[in-house]
C-alpha cells in the first residue's frame, strides 16, 4: 500500500499565467514518454523481474508518481484562473469543452493516454532496456520543454525533473549490470 505525503517532492513555483505552457507540459503528464507512463510501466514490470531489482522498480515507480504530482501542480497553476478565451488562444479550446478547467491524462496534442505506450515483456533485459530508453526519452522531452518555456519557476522545476531522469537511467543501467553478475551461476551447483 501507499501513504500519501501532503507535500511535493520539490517545491514548484509558477510565475506566469500561461495556459499555452500548460498545454506543452501535458506531454510529460499524459504523453508516451511521460511520468504516468513511467510510473505504470515500472509498477507493473516489478512483479516478474528477478528479486534483486524489485526494490528499484518499486522505488522509482513511486518517485514517478511524485513527479506526476509536480507536473499536475504546474498545469493547475498555469491554467487555474485563465478565461475560456485565454484557453482557446492557447490551443486548449477543445480541452476546455470536454474537461473544463480540470486536468486530463493526455499529451500536448490532446491525444488521451493509452497503455499501448508501455510494455512488459516478462524478459528482464528487454524490460530494463525499455526503462533506460524511457528515461532518456523523458530527459529529451524535458530539454525541449525547457527550451520552449520562459517561466523561471517552471524551468527550475523542469531542470530538477530532467536530472532525475539521469539518475533513474543510471540506476536501471546498474540493474542490468547486477543481472549480468548472475551469469553461469547455475553451473557452479
Amino acid at each position: 500500500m501507499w501513504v500519501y505525503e501532503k507535500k511535493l517532492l520539490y517545491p514548484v513555483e509558477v510565475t506566469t499565467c500561461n495556459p499555452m505552457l500548460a498545454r506543452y507540459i501535458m506531454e510529460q503528464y499524459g504523453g508516451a514518454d511521460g511520468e504516468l507512463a513511467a510510473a505504470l510501466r515500472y509498477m507493473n514490470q516489478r512483479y516478474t523481474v528477478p528479486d534483486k531489482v524489485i526494490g528499484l522498480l518499486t522505488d522509482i515507480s513511486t518517485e514517478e508518481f511524485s513527479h506526476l504530482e509536480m507536473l499536475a501542480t504546474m498545469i493547475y497553476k498555469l491554467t487555474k484562473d485563465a478565461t475560456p478565451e485565454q484557453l482557446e488562444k492557447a490551443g486548449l479550446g477543445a480541452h476546455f469543452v470536454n474537461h473544463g478547467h480540470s486536468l486530463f491524462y493526455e499529451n500536448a496534442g490532446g491525444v488521451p493516454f493509452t497503455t499501448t505506450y508501455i510494455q512488459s515483456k516478462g524478459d528482464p533485459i528487454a524490460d530494463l532496456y525499455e526503462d533506460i530508453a524511457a528515461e532518456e526519452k523523458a530527459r529529451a522531452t524535458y530539454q525541449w520543454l525547457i527550451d520552449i518555456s520562459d517561466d523561471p519557476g517552471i524551468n527550475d522545476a523542469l531542470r530538477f525533473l530532467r536530472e532525475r531522469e539521469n539518475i533513474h537511467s543510471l540506476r536501471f543501467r546498474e540493474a542490468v549490470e547486477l543481472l549480468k553478475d548472475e551469469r553461469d551461476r547455475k553451473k557452479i551447483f
Partner: protein
Amino acid sequence: MNASDEEWNLLKKVQQMDFVVVELTLYTDTHPNDEEAMNQWREAIKEAKKVRKQYESRFGPLSLLSVPSKQAIEVGWHWNSTPWPWQR
C-alpha cells in the same frame, strides 16, 4: 518574513532532507554491499525525521504516520485543511 514564507521555508527543509533519503534509497537498491552508504542512509532517515518533527509540531502532520501535535490541533489543523500541495 511572514508566516506563510516561514512555513514554505521549513517545508523546503523537509523536502531537502527527504530528498537525500530518496537518493540514498535508490543507491542502496543497487549497492546493497556498500556499508558506508547504508550507514549514511540510516543517518539520513534520522535527520529527516528530526526536521519533519520540527515542521509537523507547528504546522500539522504531513502524513497519517505522524501523531498531530497539541499545538496543531489548537490552531485548528485538520488533515483535510488547505493548502494541498498543488495549491501552495
